[in-house]
């Protein structure tokens, strides 16, 4: 084992001849928080979907702790230890906030009372406990983003994929989320890979950043290195809102 929790090895995906992702490789070490950034339409979410089992890569492989997970169904990828959120949030609208998270918790805790207790605990951590009996569809967007994180965490993943969970949050809310994720990572050693446009959050959280543009990896390095990287600056010129 290479010590990497997640290894992407030359993965690629085309849709009807259109190349969405081409030959992307990078590792995420166990216990790290890394970020995946790039302009809109660069293929970030496609990469997430290949890791999470929504798409099968046309080329290359995805390994979790040395075990190949590419080609597995999403529920089996979850089983292997990958939790994910959706960029366009997908709450179980008709169910309460608590039931939403309970569904995630049931994955490793088949008994309903235990799963519900565990879910309530996670909601407490994310500050959603007061709203646990509300229907998920009545939540505001920031709360829905939090609910996405809570539901993914409830599956007790080894690797958490966060797809733009800061988008739409106010600066103070971003700080709360950043602190929560740092704390979670420190306490449990959870490995996190995040797609994010909010540079302030990326810089605060990520120890390593991968940059993709037009489906290809164009740079990788520490936040300081990326901030100085010429290719990245070219891509981002006038693109990302400065944090």
């Amino acid at each position, binding site marked *: 084992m290479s010590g990497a929790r997640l290894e992407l090895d030359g993965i690629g995906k085309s849709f009807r001849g259109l190349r969405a992702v081409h030959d992307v490789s990078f590792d995420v070490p166990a216990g790290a928080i890394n970020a995946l950034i790039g302009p809109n339409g660069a293929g970030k979410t496609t990469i997430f979907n290949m890791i999470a089992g*929504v798409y099968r890569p046309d080329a290359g492989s995805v390994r979790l702790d040395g075990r190949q997970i590419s080609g597995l169904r999403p529920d089996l990828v979850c089983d292997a230890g990958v939790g994910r959120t959706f960029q366009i949030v997908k709450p179980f609208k008709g169910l309460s906030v608590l039931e939403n998270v309970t*569904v995630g918790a049931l994955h490793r805790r088949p008994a309903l009372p235990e799963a519900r207790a565990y879910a309530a605990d996670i909601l407490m951590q994310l500050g959603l406990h007061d709203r646990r009996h509300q229907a998920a569809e009545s939540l505001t967007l920031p709360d829905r983003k939090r609910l996405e994180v809570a539901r*993914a965490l409830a599956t007790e993943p080894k690797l958490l994929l966060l797809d733009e969970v800061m988008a739409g949050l106010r600066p103070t809310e971003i700080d709360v989320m950043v602190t929560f994720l740092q704390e979670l990572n420190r306490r449990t050693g959870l490995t996190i890979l995040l797609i994010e446009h909010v540079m302030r959050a990326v810089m605060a959280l990520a120890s390593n950043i991968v940059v993709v543009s037009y489906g290809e990896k164009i740079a990788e390095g520490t936040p300081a290195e990326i901030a100085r990287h010429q290719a990245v600056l070219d891509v981002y010129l006038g693109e990302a809102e400065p944090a």
Partner: protein
Amino acid sequence: MTLLARLTGGVPARSLWGLGLLLVLLLVAPALLGKYGLSVLILVLYFAFVGQAWNIMMGFAGQLSLGHALYAGVGGYIAAGLFFHYGIGPWAGVFVAVAAAVAAGSIVGYLGFRFSLAGVYFALLTIAFSEFTRIAFDHWGWAGGSGGLFLKVDATSDILNLRGGPLLFYYVILALAAGTFVLCRALLESRLGRYWLAIREDPEAAQAVGVPVLRCKMIAIMISAALTALAGVWNAFYYNNLFPETAFAMGRSIEFTLAPIIGGLGTLFGPIVGAVVLTGLGEIFTDLSEVFHISGLKQIFYGLALLVIVMYRPAGVWPWIADRFGFGEKRR
């Protein structure tokens, strides 16, 4: 005791008392009601039972089936055919009947779910299979073809062969309806039940949190088909005749969906309340239209009633009743 505690957890005491009272009333009802009253109550229980079975598919797992007559028809025909041709009683034949319906459900489900048909498309697939089977039975000699299959009407009570008067059929359908009610409660309060609700709300998100979507949907259609087949067997022996034209008709499939939709989709009491409302309205309208002697008038009243209900109580009658009278579950 733990199972009982799990089943009743979070239910307000007044609901439990109400439920107990309802069961007692149903048990002694035949002594209180006349022949007509009993026949109406039998219909209510039948539609509550079969509605409950359909509700598992649509209300719980979110899969719209408009072809459930297929399972009732297959079940009824097989049990009746075994009895008619070989003298095999329905208590044994029911196992074959249920197995066949589950097999049919598995085929429809596997094809539909494997090819990711959802919503209206899945509903049309279920209609197509049901209609396909109807025409096949029209031409199948063993099942009597389009001329139908008739069971001998026997006045003597023979419980072993499910032969007897309305009283026998009343208690059988009561047992089925009550048993299914408890089963549905148990299913809802289980991991599988919660997975169904998650699939109903958003299959992609469900799969991302580890829900084996295909397997859960398959279990839903198999349980639903099995229960619907039981209703079909009961129906065949209660009415003593079977015709493909009615057994597999789309109208029959639609009949199965009405009680849960009108009562409240996905709720345990929805199918029961819906069955009471629909059967009650049906009886009232029958009486009304007999006054005027116009065929079709009953159905017009019926259509108007459906229209009013769907316009003013689109989420069903039961959630509204539960809210008003505090029968709903407590938040935990």
